């Protein structure tokens, strides 16, 4: 019997298995963290514009001015002593969302879906009382969820009435759609489906299913969980390749318009579909993540290069025409 758990002859193979080689990633056109930070985020996003997306109150006001649909704002709370107003604000409401204005990664968001005798019911079925909500508001104000622990503002907004056509694809809640927009051109899209393994959260590294979307049609391209391809949703058993995002064209135009609204050249837009109002901007991200490449099974670099090569005037054409060009360049044709 060998002392080692593996045969020595297998060691090189193990070493190969653990990671890929940089030149292979390069060939696949994968965008790395350093390249994203330096070439795209620092390159296209002027620092002074960050507050527009880092503070969701500002994003919302900006979007409303530009007539981009956003969830209706109910109220904001900006100081600890105003916490007492919470009861007054939510007294008459059955559903609403409490979120930090400067939160990131979906942290600190509480979705209230209904009421019962004891209090309010969260989207995951848990019943909470007013005290719980007030504590949550107080935590947000103190900066628990904001970048760097800075003082924050609480946003209370209307809960989105999700289009139920997508609900079968997600374990809890309804998936949102992430579109990366570079200089006003949508370059890649995906949706993240919460699973039991991801504890209802839509983070890929925690076990959510990432579903790449065809820019041309809004159809599912490829689904991955923990980096491996999947065909069915692990909890609902739904075939994933049947997913088609409704209002696709409208959604992409909305995403593309966020470029003019914010001036940020490299942007992650998170969009949800409301049953009545159609695509709705949930939040913007000036530092969108890289896992979208895993969900799409292709790298961002070739697409971004194409956008890099565009002239300044190309970025000023109307949003719906940019979307059409993007779809032509980056869409997957049925025959392909």
């Amino acid at each position: 019997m060998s002392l080692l758990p593996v045969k020595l002859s297998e060691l090189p193979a193990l070493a190969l298995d653990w990671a890929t080689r940089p030149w292979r990633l390069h060939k696949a056109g994968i965008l790395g963290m350093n390249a994203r930070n330096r070439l795209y985020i620092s390159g296209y996003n002027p620092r002074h514009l960050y507050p527009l997306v880092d503070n969701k109150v500002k994003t919302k006001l900006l979007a409303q001015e530009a007539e981009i649909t956003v969830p209706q704002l109910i109220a904001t709370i900006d100081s600890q002593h105003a916490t007492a107003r919470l009861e007054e604000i939510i007294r008459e409401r059955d559903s609403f969302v409490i979120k930090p204005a400067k939160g990131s990664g979906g942290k600190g968001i509480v979705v209230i879906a209904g009421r019962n005798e004891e209090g309010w019911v969260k989207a995951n079925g848990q019943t909470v009382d007013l005290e719980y909500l007030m504590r949550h508001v107080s935590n947000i104000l103190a900066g628990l969820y904001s970048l760097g622990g800075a003082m924050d503002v609480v946003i209370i907004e209307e809960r989105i009435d999700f289009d139920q056509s997508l609900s079968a694809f997600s374990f809890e809640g309804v998936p949102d759609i992430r579109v990366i927009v570079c200089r006003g051109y949508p370059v890649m899209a995906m949706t993240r489906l919460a699973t039991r393994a991801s504890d209802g959260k839509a983070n890929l590294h925690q076990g959510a299913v990432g579903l790449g979307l065809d820019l041309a049609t809004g159809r599912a391209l490829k689904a991955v969980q923990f980096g491996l391809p999947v065909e069915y949703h692990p909890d609902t058993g739904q075939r994933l390749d049947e997913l088609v995002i409704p209002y696709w064209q409208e959604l992409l135009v909305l995403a593309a318009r966020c470029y003019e609204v914010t001036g940020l050249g490299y942007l992650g837009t998170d969009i949800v579909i409301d049953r009545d109002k159609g695509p709705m901007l949930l939040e913007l991200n000036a530092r969108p993540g890289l896992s979208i490449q895993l969900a799409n099974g292709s790298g961002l670099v070739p697409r971004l290069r194409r956008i890099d090569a565009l002239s300044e005037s190309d970025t000023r054409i109307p949003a719906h025409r940019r979307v059409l060009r993007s779809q032509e360049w980056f869409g997957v044709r049925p025959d392909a």
Partner: protein
Amino acid sequence: MKRPVPYYFVICTLILIGAGLILHRHWVYEIPLTPGESQTIWSLEAKVQFMANGEPVRASLARPSNQPGFMVLRDSGASPGYGLNFIDAPAPMAEWTIRQANGMQMLFYRVEVLQSENSGDLPPEAPPVLQTHEWKEPFASAVRVILDRVYSTSADHFSLTRELLKAFAAEPAEQNVELLMNEFGNDRPEQLAYMLNKAGVPARVVYGLYLQDGRRQQDLTPLIRVWQGDKSQVFPIPGYSPNLVGTEDMGPLLLWEQRGAPVLDVMGARDSQVRFSMIRREESTYATVANTLSSQYNLFNFSIHSLPVEEQAMFKTILLLPIGALVVCFLRILVGLKTSGTFMPVLIALAFIQTSLVTGLIGFLLVVAAGLVLRSYLSKMNLLLVARITSVIICVVAIIGVFSVLSYKFGLTEGLKITFFPMIILSWTVERMSILWEEEGPREVVTQVGGSLLTAVLAYWAMNNPWVRHLTFNFIGIQFVILGLVLLLGSYTGYRLLELKRFVAFTR
């Protein structure tokens, strides 16, 4: 995206400046690039004695100055009741003064010199004026005869001196030389200098000390220094070799006085004399440099070493920080390691340097674990953020206190070192980890604590490396090189090591 043109230029300039400063310190101040090399330091002590008789006394003693082969590190004087001044012009000397002194007086002057390999000619210096001296007959003609002969058999001032000294060293001595030697008696060095001056050769009697470890009650040895233009050389005088143990091992010669000024000049007292004792010691350059040059308050010596020793000790730590930060940069940009708080690992690593690695690691994990337990209770109390962190700080202080007392009671004095940890940083770590646990689960906590500790351990190894410590402390230039490297890292847009694992699916 295009890089601005001066970008690489700036980086290259920084690295070149850094390398230049390092080499400058290495060559000019002879600080070795590796630690552990020892250098020889001589501690020399001059004891001045005289009989005072109630009058004001002024005693001046020549001080040695930098010369080829030796660098003066520091000097000091000990002399109760005397005013003491170090005077640099016209010649470097120590001057003791007192209004009234009686009986036998003893004054001490101590100097430390660094012996260096660098030997060679004395630095160029203008020659002194020629002195005239008249001899009585028949000595005057003897002088003339000897000078005529050595002049004809020599080419320049130096060879003329050699010829003259050879004549005085010859056995048996020639008649004229014999005559003069008897006449000169104990005054021979000065008389020889006069003879040289007579021949038009600028020369002075200077005094040197042959260094040999542990010698006491030594006299200075007179020597003749001869100038040829700006250049000068020092010649030993026949019959004036020092009484050393073993003639082969003469030891290096330190010129105590270089310009022919009197070595000791005492006014207001009698029977003055000066005796020297010396000790040799080997010091690692690291220790040496702490003292080196601290007394050289030279306008162009902007080094840390011009600070008092105490402040230097502080800078030893501060100058290590860039190394730790460089390690963090490296691990985050090239490896992609996740840490809790960007530079928190550097501070933890600094604490490890104080505590030693194993103690530090155990202490850190104990404190953070205990902190997390307490914090989980605090999170139930619905406190405001600042108050909660303050409570965590107090808890961390309490935990550290408890661990110190416990380990002391159990006889583990190592445990007391836990107090070196930066408490505020630990508290923030506890707070962040606690939130992370609630939001992302224990797995992420383990990842981040593991990443932070790995970074801290690597930073610790880097910062605790004797060679790195030696370099950062002795060569300010290294900071420029580090800055250059960091700028270079900042422009790296390639993949991180962990991304190769993250995106492994693409090549399956």
